[in-house]
């Protein structure tokens, strides 16, 4: 657990980067600091490993004041991932990852073995171990950066806009991998970004900062979207927050409707309307409409009309359910179970009704 108590950072020129910050970061969770540039989010992160010294106040890690430890020892116990990775250009990928274990005095063989394990964990091919950072793509370098931060298995990771310099597709990939890794590792992660979508996607909790180093709101992402504390947070959270907020509501309680299906190769029933075509395992392939077709037509691939998005009944959100309904050519969203087999259908109306039911009672709020 990391605690900020009355933390202020005043730079020599008098500017206040962080103003009297009180915040507790939950152990084993991802906390995201987000805000416009100049809001003190990065300064706050860098004070944790003393890359920037605190002017007033204290930061404690599991109750220990960070100022009590030697700075270099403190840093070796905290993983650090930065923008553009900040890899050592003169060291191979393997030796980059082995940096902190070697600083901690591990043998070279053990450190390299650990580094090789981590390459696998972050999804880097083993043949890259002998290459140099300059020979890797931006996304690959960022994976190396994450592996390097994890090498000595620190309980805490500081991630300073780690994915902001890679293209959107790679970024989304890296975000998903981070969530997958975190599900296994359960690190206490402090993640800084200026991208509210990234904050909402990754954070168990999100701290929104405003210019001048003031904390505007500290909440779970769903609440941040549903209940911005003030106009600043509302403006920062941005457009479509109502729709994006659906991403935090489970689809499990949605009533599922019947869905006419036909297996590929079988004949189309007479007088059918929209029918979902499935394969032998009842996984959806596409739609077919009965009008203008002879009954008894054997359904083939060439007849298929592409379907919309799918959503998983148990793990899906109202957002994915609504999107499934809106993107389906028949207006019926296709719900699938954990194996990808058709479980039923949902219409946009059903989602909106469920949303109405879930709306908190204004008297109770």
């Amino acid at each position, binding site marked *: 657990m990391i605690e900020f108590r009355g933390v202020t950072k005043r730079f020599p020129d008098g500017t206040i980067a962080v103003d009297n910050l009180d915040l507790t970061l939950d152990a084993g969770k991802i906390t995201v600091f987000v805000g416009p540039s100049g809001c003190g989010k990065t300064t706050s992160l860098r004070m944790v490993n003393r890359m920037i010294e605190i002017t007033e106040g204290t930061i404690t890690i599991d109750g220990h004041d960070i100022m009590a430890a030697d700075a270099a020892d403190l*840093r070796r116990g905290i993983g650090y991932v*930065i923008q*553009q990775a900040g890899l*050592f*250009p003169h060291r191979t990928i393997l030796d980059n990852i082995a*940096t902190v274990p070697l600083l901690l005095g591990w043998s070279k063989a053990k450190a390299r073995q650990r580094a090789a394990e981590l390459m696998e964990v972050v999804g880097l091919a083993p*043949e890259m171990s002998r*290459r140099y950072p300059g020979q*890797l793509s931006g996304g690959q370098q960022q994976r190396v950066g994450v592996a390097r931060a994890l090498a000595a298995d620190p309980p805490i990771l500081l991630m300073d806009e780690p994915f902001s310099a890679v293209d959107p597709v790679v970024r989304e990939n890296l975000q998903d991998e981070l969530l997958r890794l975190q599900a296994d590792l359960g690190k206490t992660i402090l993640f800084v970004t200026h991208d509210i979508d990234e904050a909402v996607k990754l954070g168990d909790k999100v701290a929104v900062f405003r210019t001048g180093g003031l904390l505007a709101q500290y909440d779970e992402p769903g609440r941040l979207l549903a209940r911005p504390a003030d106009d600043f947070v509302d403006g920062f959270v941005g457009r479509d927050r109502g729709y994006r907020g659906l991403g935090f509501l489970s689809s499990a309680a949605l009533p599922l409707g019947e869905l006419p299906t036909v297996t590929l190769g079988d004949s189309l029933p007479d007088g059918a309307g929209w029918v979902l075509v499935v394969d032998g395992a009842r996984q959806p392939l596409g739609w077919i409409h009965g009008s203008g077709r002879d009954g008894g037509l054997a359904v083939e691939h060439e007849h298929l009309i592409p379907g919309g998005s799918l959503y998983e009944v148990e793990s899906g959100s109202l957002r994915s359910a609504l999107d499934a309904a809106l993107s389906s050519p028949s207006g019926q969203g296709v719900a699938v179970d954990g194996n990808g087999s058709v479980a039923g259908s949902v219409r946009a109306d059903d989602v909106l009704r469920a949303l109405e039911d879930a709306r908190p009672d204004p008297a109770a709020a």
Partner: protein
Amino acid sequence: MTWVLGNLELIWDLTLEHLVFALVPVVLGVVLSLPLGWLANRTGIGRTFTINVAGLLYTVPSLALFVILPPLLGTQILDPINVIVALTVYTVALLVRTVADALSAVPAVVVNAATAMGYRPVRRFLAVELPLAVPVVVAGIRVAAVSSISLVTVGSVIGFGGLGKMFTDGFQRSIPQEIIAGIVLVLVMALVVDGALVGIGRLLTPWSRPVSTARSAA
């Protein structure tokens, strides 16, 4: 050619002497310049001071330095140490600036990353900053080495000039062959040493070579 063939042993001895007088100061100069350049790079004032002093030293004419040094060092005027010290001074004067520039050109993001990983300053300098400064430092050493090889010849005026002795001797005794052979050998030595330094620089910087293996997709 007859003069050359008749004096091979002398030419060989002078070549070796020349090489020692030229390269010992370069080695000493590199060893001295690294900490000085590091210090110069720490503060703005240190940088201005060091670089100005180095620039001033380089403007002292070499012949004057050979004459001034004996009383300063307490050596005889014909002591080879004078040549070594004088050329070391020139090497340092050339290299301090290069080292300071090379270190300041190491990307701040890499230095900060090293600090954040838990490097303490001295180890960070040796393990991260210095290796990354190598390409620029080697470029500076090449200039210093070639300049040192050429300056050694001036030492022949006080009797320790290596191949430079072939200039003075050839001039006094009117043997053009000896002068030409001396010039050619100095040129060849400069080229060989320069080539060797390029090779050493490549060996020390395997990471900066162009990619030879095909990139794989992310």
